[in-house]
C-alpha cells in the first residue's frame, strides 16, 4: 500500500506524462463502480414499472391474438441460451482482463459481441414476424406492453453492443490501461445485469404468457 505523501515523488520519477489524477485510479474506480451500480438500480425501477404494466394488462387481448398463439417457446429458449452464453463469454473477458491478456480479452469480447448481436437479430426477427402477422404493438394492450417491455430490454442490449464495440476499439488502440479496465468492469456489470432482467422477462412474459 503506497502512502499518499510519497505519491507525487513516485509520479514525477516514473510517469511524468501522466496527470496527478491518475494516482487516484483505485478510488476513482471504486466511486465510478458505485455510481454505475446506482444507475443500474434506477434501471431496475424502470423495468419494474414495465413489468407492472405487463402484469396488469398482459391478458387484455382486445379480441386479438394471445401469448399462447404467438409465442414459440423453443425460439425463446434459444434466445435465452444465446444471451446466457454471451454473459458467460463476458466472464472470460473479465478473467482475461485481470490476467492482463490483451489479445484474449479482445477475442472474448468479440465472442460476447457476436452472441449479443445474434440475440438482437433473433429479437428483430421475432418482432418483424409479429408485426407481419398483424400482432403489432397497436393491436391490444397486451401487445403494447409486450413490445414496450421486451423492446426496452432489446434497446439496452443494443446500447451494450455499441458500448462494447467502442471499448474494444479503445482496448485495441490503448491496451489494458486503467481507463479501459474500468470501462470493461462497468460494461460487465451492465451486460450481466441485462441477463438478469431477461430471466424475469422469459418467466413473466413468455412462460406465464403461454399458460
Amino acid at each position: 500500500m503506497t502512502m499518499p505523501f510519497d505519491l507525487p515523488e513516485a509520479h514525477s520519477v516514473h510517469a511524468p506524462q501522466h496527470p496527478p489524477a491518475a494516482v487516484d485510479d483505485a478510488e476513482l474506480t471504486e466511486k465510478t463502480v458505485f455510481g454505475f451500480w446506482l444507475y443500474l438500480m434506477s434501471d431496475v425501477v424502470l423495468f419494474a414499472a414495465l413489468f407492472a404494466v405487463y402484469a396488469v394488462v398482459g391478458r387484455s387481448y382486445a379480441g386479438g391474438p394471445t401469448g399462447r398463439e404467438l409465442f414459440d417457446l423453443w425460439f425463446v429458449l434459444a434466445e435465452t441460451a444465446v444471451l446466457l452464453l454471451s454473459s458467460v463469454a463476458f466472464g472470460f473477458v473479465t478473467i482475461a482482463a485481470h490476467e492482463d491478456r490483451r489479445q484474449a480479452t479482445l477475442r472474448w469480447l468479440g465472442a460476447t459481441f457476436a452472441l449479443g448481436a445474434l440475440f438482437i437479430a433473433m429479437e428483430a426477427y421475432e418482432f418483424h414476424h409479429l408485426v407481419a402477422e398483424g400482432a403489432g404493438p397497436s393491436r391490444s394492450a397486451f401487445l403494447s406492453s409486450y413490445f414496450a417491455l421486451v423492446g426496452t430490454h432489446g434497446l439496452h442490449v443494443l446500447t451494450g453492443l455499441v458500448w462494447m464495440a467502442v471499448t474494444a476499439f479503445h482496448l485495441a488502440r490503448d491496451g489494458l490501461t486503467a481507463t479501459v479496465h474500468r470501462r470493461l468492469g462497468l460494461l460487465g456489470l451492465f451486460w450481466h445485469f441485462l441477463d438478469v432482467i431477461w430471466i424475469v422477462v422469459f418467466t413473466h412474459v413468455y412462460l406465464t404468457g403461454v399458460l
Partner: protein
Amino acid sequence: MADRRTQHLPGAAASLRHYARGFLLSVILTGAAFALVMTHALPREATIFVIFVLAAVQVVVHIADFLHVDTSLEQRWNLFATLFALLVVGILVGGSIWIMFSAHERMRPDMPAMTMPPESF
C-alpha cells in the same frame, strides 16, 4: 501486475469456478422452468408459482456468480442500494397489481353489493 488497477473492479475476485457454477445452475434452472411449462407436468397455478421461484433463485445465482455482489464490507453500499431498489420494485409491482386487480373486482358490473341504496345518502 494488474492488481492496483483492478482491485476495486467488479469481478476482482472472479474466477472460472464462479462462472462455471453460475452457468451450470442457470442451465438447470432455466431448463426446469421451460420443461415444466412445455410438458404441463403441474396444474397451471402451481406451474406459475414454481417458475417464479426458479426465476428468483436464478436471479440470486446471477447476482452472486456473475455480478459478484456479496455481503463483504467493501460491497455494503452496493448491497444497500440493491435492497432499496428491491423495496421500490416491491411497492411498484406489488402495489400496481394489488390496486388494479382490486379496482377491477370493484368495477364488475355484476356486483350489486357495491351499489349503495339511495336512502343512505
